[in-house]
């Protein structure tokens, strides 16, 4: 080993605490980068492979009913490679463990074989046998929740008749990687299951012999999807087509896509912040190192080492720390990534969740962190290169101290010499003091971004589920019904209030943007789903025009008073231009609202309902559920409390892990910043402090001198960090979170306090470590040392 390398190794060993704390910050950034990017890559690859293997369809469409020969005409459309017609029907399931009804989506598969598109991955058991009308395959997540396997049975309300079905197998489908029930934005494995049944059997039950009500297509390569959608809609419109859509709008595909996008943002934004902090720490530490090594730099130059060699020596210093940190980060990142990808397999049902680490990810992590560190170190190294040898060996000119403006401001109040020393020391190098405070601020901000999510989500749940959605149960009918149904529902046991609504699939267009959404027809003043604007009272739906949820209005780029085009994707497919009468302040979902009468007029129908909101007396819940399980007209029942629980179980878990990680990483940064600051300060003030000790000051008193300056940095850094964190949180909710969710920027005072506390603890911990060094200060050696 060359002597300079030997010096490097021993210097690093001597400054191991500092080296370690910087390395850890690098490691945090790299770990986050590797974990999120590798999870992202793994999930994407898993889905790609799964979609290819199972021939996931490109285009989806549902309709009321069409004769089978229409399939030949669909196949004849330019760009269509494969056509698969199906029968798809949502029905009520009566599960033994559940008092409330669940929803089963019945999907037909060809007799005795796999479908051409959306093939099933059979986990256990087999496909239904041809001719057996009571055999079903069940999707895995539902089967797991209910403990179902081949040989078990379940009860479904098939076209008004209770029927016991035999489970012959458990399967996965690319259409239901996340099993989303209609109208829900979250998977609910307890209350929503997918059942695959033989086509003939299902046709018999629903009176669909020789007909279909759902079709999926695969496109040939080079086909234009919008063109196919347009032609398919034209073909299906006479048969009650509800608008065809591509993969990107397929709910499960969309859900996974949103989640992946979030991961990608996490993988890029957060590590950059960490690496910036690491670069900043290195900047300070190496800068300080160069300062203390001045005479050694001069000596090396006197001995004939060139400036470049000496400069490289200090770059290597940074390189070793960064590289070590990056390697640890990669190892931790891989472990985290595996766990993370594993956690996603709770929500994403792939046949297997393979973990993939593409080689470019660790390489980019190493490269990126080295680059960041180099940028941080370069300034200091440049000073090394520029130092003339003779000048370097001279002790630096004594720093100029004068009573600062800050001190004059505080004059009279700073009676103690310690306080005066603290203030002068800060005032002499205001930039560095500011940078150190900024480091503390960065750590504070990162912890706050991790912690604020639970406040935001808590607030969102509170507003959405107790102020906006006041119903307990939503009942959707299998077919639109007359408004008389509302009265019948009111007579069911336990129902204290009923509000009928009409839901119609529509395409809302504004300029070049468009979205498929449910247009909900509500009473002008809905009591169970009030529409909140910015005012203190709910808004009233006007007799004309529609209202959009804030999220939808933003996506379409429209404001109240502007006009949108609304095309109904049902019945006669009428299209109208409408005024946006108002924007509804909602956090969940992309929704559009109209007065129900106006919607009925748009649909050219009499007073018609497709669903109803119920308020239920909890004492009669069980009775009500039992009745609903036996009501043929009811297709889907949604329970608010079940939705809330699912929200907690899915989002809650992910958020907990996410904010836990950020908090831990933020604490590492806070520790790194404060500890390094303390060590540097100690090195600078060693003589001063030792002199004070010689003069008779106690350890406690000199600690106050040193820790006072640190405390000042932390005290300034925390409030700045809280403001910074607020901004970072505002930024992160614009780039993260699914499209259908608007995360409110809500941070409770308690969270602010907790974050400030965490940073203070982290700071106190590093101060304690430095205090121990201070207690061991060798007075004589320090004073004998040449400055």
């Amino acid at each position, binding site marked *: 080993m*060359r*002597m*300079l390398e*030997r*010096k490097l190794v*021993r*210097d690093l060993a*001597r400054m191991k605490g500092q080296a370690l704390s910087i390395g850890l910050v690098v490691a945090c950034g790299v770990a986050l980068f590797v974990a999120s990017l590798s999870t992202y890559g793994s999930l994407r690859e898993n889905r790609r492979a799964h979609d290819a293997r199972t021939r996931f369809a490109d285009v989806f469409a549902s309709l009321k009913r069409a004769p089978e020969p229409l399939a030949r005409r669909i196949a004849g459309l330019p760009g269509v490679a494969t056509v698969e017609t199906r029968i798809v029907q949502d029905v009520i399931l009566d599960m033994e463990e559940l008092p409330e009804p669940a929803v089963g989506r019945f999907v037909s598969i060809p007799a005795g074989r796999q479908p051409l598109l959306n093939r099933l991955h059979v986990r256990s058991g087999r496909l239904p046998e041809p001719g057996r009308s009571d055999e079903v395959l069940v999707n895995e997540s539902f089967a797991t929740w209910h403990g179902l396997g081949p040989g078990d049975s379940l009860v479904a309300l098939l076209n008004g008749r209770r029927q016991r079905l035999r489970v012959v197998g458990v399967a996965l489908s690319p259409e239901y990687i996340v099993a989303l029930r209609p109208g829900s934005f979250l998977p609910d494995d307890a209350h929503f299951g997918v059942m695959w049944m033989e086509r003939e059997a299902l046709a018999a039950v629903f009176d669909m012999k020789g007909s279909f009500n759902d079709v999926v297509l695969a496109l040939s390569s080079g086909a234009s999807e919008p063109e196919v959608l347009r032609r398919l809609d034209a073909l299906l419109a006479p048969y009650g087509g509800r608008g065809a859509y591509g993969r990107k709008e397929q709910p499960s595909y969309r859900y996974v896509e949103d989640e992946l996008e979030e991961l990608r943002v996490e993988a890029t934004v957060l590590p950059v912040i960490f690496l910036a902090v690491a670069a900043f720490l290195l900047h300070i530490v190496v800068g300080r190192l160069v300062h203390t090594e001045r*005479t*050694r730099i*001069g*000596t*090396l*130059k*006197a*001995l*004939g*080492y*060139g*400036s470049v060699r000496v400069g490289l020596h200090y770059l290597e210093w940074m390189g070793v720390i960064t590289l070590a940190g990056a390697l640890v980060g990669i190892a931790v990142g891989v472990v985290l990534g595996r766990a993370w990808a594993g956690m996603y397999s709770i929500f994403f049902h792939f046949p297997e969740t393979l973990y993939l680490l593409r080689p470019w990810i660790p390489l980019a992590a190493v490269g990126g962190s080295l680059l960041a560190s180099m940028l941080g170190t370069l300034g200091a190294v440049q000073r090394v290169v520029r130092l*003339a*040898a*003779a*000048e370097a*060996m001279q002790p630096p*000119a004594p720093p100029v101290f004068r009573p600062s403006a800050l001190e004059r401001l505080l004059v009279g109040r700073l009676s103690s010499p310690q306080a005066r020393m603290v203030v002068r020391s800060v005032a002499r190098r205001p930039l560095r003091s500011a940078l150190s405070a900024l480091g503390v601020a960065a750590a504070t901000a990162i912890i706050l971004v991790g912690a604020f999510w639970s406040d935001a989500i808590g607030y969102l749940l509170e507003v959405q589920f107790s102020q906006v959605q006041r119903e307990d149960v939503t009942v959707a009918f299998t077919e639109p019904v007359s408004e008389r149904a509302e009265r019948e529902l009111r007579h069911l046991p336990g129902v204290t209030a009923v509000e009928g609504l009409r839901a119609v699939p529509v395409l809302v267009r504004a300029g070049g943007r468009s979205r498929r959404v449910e247009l909900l027809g509500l009473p002008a003043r809905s009591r169970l789903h009030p529409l909140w604007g910015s005012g203190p009272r709910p808004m009233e739906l006007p007799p004309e025009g529609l209202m959009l949820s804030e999220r939808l209005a933003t996506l379409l780029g429209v404001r109240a008073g502007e006009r949108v085009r609304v095309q109904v994707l049902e019945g006669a497919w009428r299209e109208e231009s409408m005024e946006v009468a108002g924007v509804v302040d909602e956090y969940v979902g992309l929704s559009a609202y109209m007065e129900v009468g106006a919607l009925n007029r748009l649909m050219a129908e009499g007073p018609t309902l497709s669903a109803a909101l119920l308020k239920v007396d909890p004492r009669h819940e069980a009775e009500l559920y039992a009745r609903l399980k036996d009501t043929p007209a009811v297709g889907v029942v949604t329970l608010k409390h079940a939705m809330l629980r699912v929200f907690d179980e899915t989002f809650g878990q992910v958020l907990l892990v996410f904010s836990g990680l950020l908090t831990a990483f933020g604490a590492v940064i806070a520790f790194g910043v404060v500890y390094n600051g303390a060590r540097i300060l100690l090195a600078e003030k060693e003589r001063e402090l030792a002199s004070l000790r010689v003069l008779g000051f106690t350890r406690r008193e000199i600690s106050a001198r040193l820790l006072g300056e640190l405390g000042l940095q932390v005290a300034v850094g925390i409030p700045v960090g809280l403001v910074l964190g607020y901004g970072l949180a505002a930024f992160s909710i614009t780039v993260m979170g699914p499209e259908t969710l608007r995360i409110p920027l809500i941070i409770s005072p308690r969270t602010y306090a907790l974050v400030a506390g965490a940073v203070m603890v982290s700071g106190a911990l590093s101060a304690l470590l430095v205090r121990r060094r201070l207690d061991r200060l060798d007075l004589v050696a320090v004073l004998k040392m*040449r400055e």
Partner: protein
Amino acid sequence: MTAPKPGQAVLVARGLTKVYRTGEVEVHALRSVDLDLYSGEFIVLLGPSGSGKSTLLNILGGLDVPTRGDITYRDHDLARADERELTRYRREHVGFVFQFYNLIPSLTARENVALVTEIAEQPMRPEEALQLVGLGQRMEHFPSQLSGGEQQRVAIARAVAKRPDLLLCDEPTGALDYVTGKLVLDTLLRVNVELGTTTVVITHNAAIAGMADRVIRIADGRIVRIESNPHKLKPEELSW
């Protein structure tokens, strides 16, 4: 590389001037100094502190460049050399010994010497250099485990290990006690005699002048007198 013949001028300085600016103050450290150094000489530069002797030494050693004037080492123009050329000059021809030793604390005695032998062209082995200064037994010690005199002798070993043409010593005994100081001077003389190295010792201790071939007195940035010393004393005969 041919060794310069004894008595030949190896370093020639004419009109050396150095002005430092610190803040608003201009300090004239050297005012038009003329000087020749001959091969194999042992020179003592005497002067009170602040007289400019360290500045002169730094310029002779290529650690600094003059503000005005000329200085050549054989065919090297040191006044107009750039950083790279000065580094090469120091690496190939000059050895330094400082008052405060300037050893690298994280390297052992042997490693400190090796620091130089690694980049020199025809160095002695570090062990050889350390034996020359009488520290053959303490090679694996770190600076913090050595006494001041020992540290200075390591510094001398480090300076001579590359077989420099010029050995420049800035107050080599300044931080040492009487006995140790003499030991160090003895070591310097041995190097001068055995290796034929041109040696310049800066000091404000007039007694040391007794062991020099020539004594140069400097005050207020000017050379006030140059004396030849026909009766050289051995270090042990000096007293102060």
